């Protein structure tokens, strides 16, 4: 979310919800059970929309949002599954192509592209409160 807050005045953002990565009927992760994120792979558009809405509500997700249709056109066009980042420039050309997630999903690279164009946004380092003297 930080990259969105830092650069939303310069660039547009769009999250594209694609088919589930770790649904209960495929490769479910223990972390999903722990976090109570348990969904079967949607078979209908209504099911896909319901999960997308659960996601945005649960996290109060602020980014503009679109849902890939059941033919997975966006996923296929961008080889996007399970997660991936791109930046498209003003001329409609790929300016940054992120690697395949999860191992090569690197928001820092997209941030660096934005920082190269619009300048780095720095955040004050969090400091630990000094211990109280007894």
């Amino acid at each position, binding site marked *: 979310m930080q990259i969105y807050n830092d650069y939303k005045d310069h660039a547009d953002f769009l999250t594209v919800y694609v088919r589930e990565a770790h*649904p209960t009927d495929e*490769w479910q992760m223990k972390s999903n059970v722990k976090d109570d994120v348990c969904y079967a792979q949607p078979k209908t558009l209504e099911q896909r929309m319901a999960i997308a809405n659960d996601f945005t509500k649960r996290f109060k997700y602020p980014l503009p949002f679109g*849902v890939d249709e059941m033919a997975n056109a966006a996923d296929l*066009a961008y080889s996007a*599954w399970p997660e991936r980042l791109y930046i*498209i420039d003003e001329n409609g050309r*790929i300016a940054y192509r992120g690697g395949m997630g999860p191992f090569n999903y690197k928001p820092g690279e997209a941030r660096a592209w934005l920082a190269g164009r619009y300048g780095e946004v720095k955040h004050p380092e969090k400091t630990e409160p000094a211990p109280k003297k007894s």
Partner: protein
Amino acid sequence: MKRFLKWSLGVVLGLLVVAFGALSYLAGSPKDALYMVRYALPHMHRGNLKVGDEAPDARLLALDGQTSFHIRERTAGRPLVLVFGSFT
């Protein structure tokens, strides 16, 4: 010849065991490695898009489930950061 075949088979099996071990490490466990091969790898594609290529278009649905729009409608005037992902 038989000996050569035995050695070849041994080497191939050894490589498979090493590959499966590496995959299990990456995925988290042998069971996860199997699921990764079964469910993830068939859907993971590096793709042919390169920096400088025309960005492909696709139709998306808004969260209301009724309104549709195209990715390229959002690319006028400013760069567009596309974030692909799912809930799980």
